């Protein structure tokens, strides 16, 4: 049977009705497509007022200092990997989102919110490189973060990011893992690891330890071998360490941060620190 080469068809393009230069392949994402049908200009203005209404010193300094020099472009991996397309430059992203919102004082139509959400969520990695390249040290990433907050308040968030956030809302970890599942997994990994390292223990909830390790939720779910590897390293190094199973706060990843859901961001971080305080741990070690 002859192998049929997959023909790459011409993709449909999306041209922004607001910025003719903004041409992208068309994507289908219910998180963006469906939600913009539900928002109204009043809701948009309310969200704008909530995020940008009260001008803080940071926003003021950033918006009033930028001299549009375009030196931040060289820092952006999106810009560099897209043949230096002007619309991928950090300052262009700010222009198409914040300047446009501020120019119209939040009185914008849903189709612009779609563009804004697409730019802020899918074309910026919030890596802070542009802030380090800016001659004025303007925190461009902070501004993009605020734009994400604006989109989150309107519910215009890519589906996958929002689903992940819902996992955090329900279970405080990103993989819908229950506390009993977690404990079970740790016992299982202890058992498996004992064959390879004598007297391997998976210490749980020990008070007054030196190191508390918070794994990433993907580790007990998908990359379980990471757990006994780390346990072996700690054991051989003679570190007095523990894992936390007393409640649901054990996942160190903070996905709500990516859509700027402040409430859940706080729940996660507070949960981790509360547990550390309860166990009187000296150091927190997080997987990254």
């Amino acid at each position, binding site marked *: 049977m002859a192998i049929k080469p997959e023909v790459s068809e011409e993709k449909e393009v999306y041209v922004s009705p607001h910025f003719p230069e903004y041409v992208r392949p068309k994507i289908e994402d219910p998180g963006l497509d469906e939600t913009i049908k539900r928002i109204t200009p009043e809701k948009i203005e309310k969200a704008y007022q909530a995020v940008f209404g009260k001008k803080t010193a940071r926003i003021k300094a950033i918006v009033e200092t930028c001299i549009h020099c375009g030196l931040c*472009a060289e820092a952006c991996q999106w810009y560099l990997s897209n043949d230096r397309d002007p619309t991928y430059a950090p300052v262009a992203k700010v222009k198409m989102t914040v300047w446009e919102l501020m120019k119209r004082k939040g009185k914008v139509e849903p189709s612009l919110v779609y563009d804004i959400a697409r730019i802020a969520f899918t074309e910026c990695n919030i890596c802070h490189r542009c802030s*380090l390249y800016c001659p004025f040290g303007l925190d461009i990433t902070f501004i993009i973060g605020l734009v994400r907050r604006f989109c989150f308040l309107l519910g215009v968030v890519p589906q996958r990011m929002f689903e992940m956030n819902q996992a955090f809302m329900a279970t405080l970890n990103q993989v819908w893992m229950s506390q009993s599942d977690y404990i079970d997994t740790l016992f299982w990994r202890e058992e498996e690891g004992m064959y390879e390292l004598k007297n391997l223990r998976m210490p749980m909830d020990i008070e007054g330890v030196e190191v508390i390790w918070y794994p990433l939720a993907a580790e007990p779910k998908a990359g379980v071998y990471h757990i006994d590897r780390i346990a072996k390293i700690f054991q051989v190094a003679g570190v007095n360490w523990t894992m936390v199973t007393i409640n649901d706060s054990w996942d160190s990843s903070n996905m709500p941060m990516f859509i700027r859901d402040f409430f859940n961001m706080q729940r996660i971080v507070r949960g981790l620190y509360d547990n550390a305080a309860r166990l009187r741990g000296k150091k927190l070690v997080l997987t990254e």
Partner: protein
Amino acid sequence: MGFLESVALYSFLRGPMVWITFIIFIVGSIYRSYTLINLAKKERIVVNIKAAIKSYFHWLIPFGSRNWRLRPYFTLFTFVFHTGIVFIPIFLYAHNALWYESWKISWWTLSDTVADVWTILVIIGCLFFIGRRLFNPTVRFVTTYSDFIFVFICLFTFLTGFLAHYQWLLSYRAMLNLHILFGEIMLIAIPFTRLTHMYYFFFTRALMASQAASWKTKDW
């Protein structure tokens, strides 16, 4: 042409207008800085002085930071332009003479040759910036009319000053009036427009430097 050359205009620009300009510039700048700092105090903003000074140092010397090294021509022109725009007016012999006439104070001055060459370089810098805004697609995409106006104000100030010194093109007095007018517009514009980057530089730079220091990285 008559009005432009008139002594009345000259004495207005040279007399009350100078006072107004400097009062607006100084009071406005202090007000803008003060309100920004006051606003920042209400927020949780950490400032690490040591990191900030290091950061100033690296960004204020040519080729001191990675981004300056990535764009040698831009760096060259921006430094010649910005140092020129600050130091030429202060240390120019003719300006010094005016200070001496009015208040009997004076300080070091630039020699005529240095001032001329530097002024020409500043003018070339202005043209470079305009060209960049026109022909660099990345910059053109984010350029607004105000950006051109800022550059043109600087360009005209220096160009008319240079032409007035050599008494070319227009009559000396007309050129001089234009020069004073543009200079005053520039100074007045500083507190009200994005030309505030003249002193906001130090605040925003300090903020980023402190943040970078808290991540144990450097921002240059």
